[in-house]
């Protein structure tokens, strides 16, 4: 099949509609395409015969019309409420956003130089955060006060 014929081959559907004059002209001059078009028409004809051979398909069941009218009279099922989905999705998104915000705005105790000892030669005291002054605020019992004092004395 030539390239030109292939171009027409894709237009055989127009044979049904009779709306492709260029295709018709081509068919008068090209025997190969004419044979293709004939096979095309035969298939269509066969499909028509197939439908005609089954008269049962042409009839509608007795109760069809009444059944449809009955179905029309039935109340519509309770419509799903799309706003619910939006509310739930919106709520979840807001909760996630709030959690993310809280995470980023939480009090930040971490300092980049935390790992380095501000007092070289002095070992950090167990239980005392030498970077966190807040640790010393509040009730300090005598034992803890003694520890702190010893810690600073040692450092000095």
């Amino acid at each position, binding site marked *: 099949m030539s390239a030109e014929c292939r171009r027409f081959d894709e237009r055989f559907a127009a044979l049904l*509609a009779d709306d492709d004059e260029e295709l018709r002209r081509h068919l008068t001059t090209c025997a190969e395409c004419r044979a293709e078009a004939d096979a095309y028409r035969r298939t269509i004809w066969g499909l028509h015969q197939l439908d005609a051979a089954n008269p049962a398909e042409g009839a509608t069941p007795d109760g069809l019309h009444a059944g449809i009218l009955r179905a029309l009279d039935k109340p519509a099922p309770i419509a799903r409420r799309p706003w619910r989905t939006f509310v739930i999705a919106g709520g979840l998104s807001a909760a996630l956003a709030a959690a993310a915000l809280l995470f980023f705005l939480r009090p930040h105790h971490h300092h980049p130089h935390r790992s380095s000892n501000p007092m070289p030669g002095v070992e950090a005291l167990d239980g005392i955060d030498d970077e966190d002054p807040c640790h010393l605020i509040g009730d300090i019992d005598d034992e803890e006060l003694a520890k702190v004092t010893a810690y600073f004395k040692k450092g000095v």
Partner: protein
Amino acid sequence: MTLQLALVTPPPPDDDETLIARFRGGERRAFDELVARHEKAIFRMALRSLRDQADAEDVTQRAFVQAFRRLDGFRGDSSFRTWLYRIAFNLVVTHARDAGRARRAMQSLDAPPPAAPVERDESSRRLRAAVAQLPLKQRLVVELRIYDELPFREVAQIADCSEDAAKMNFHHALKKLRVLLQENEA
């Protein structure tokens, strides 16, 4: 004489647009007339595709119920018939996607539906079997064009594709049918 004729001649039936306007005006019976006008075509389309009378009745009924409930949203971009076909087309596709129903639809061509007469000849049986092997959407395009005699423009609107795509689907389906028929003959 003219008056007498006018009295005995029933008025021509309203077209779909008029019936829709009447229905929107509150006249429920107008929709019943739309049902009466289109139910046969919709049922036939469903039966051809699903090959099961009960399924076809179900799809037809649901198509009209959907149309009834959504008619307020019908903008008239296409004809009512096209719009209704499109609803039914989608229902058929959804229905057939159910594995069991699809299997039944496929098997039916080897065993014709109970109401259908036995195929007259071997070639019809082969052609029917070949049609059943087409992809569902391609089959629907062929059936809408050949049996419902809808123009490609309307077939395209129903199948939600361009007119060229509908033509190409039709073309490929027919080519495939020929190949399948040749294979069945061999």
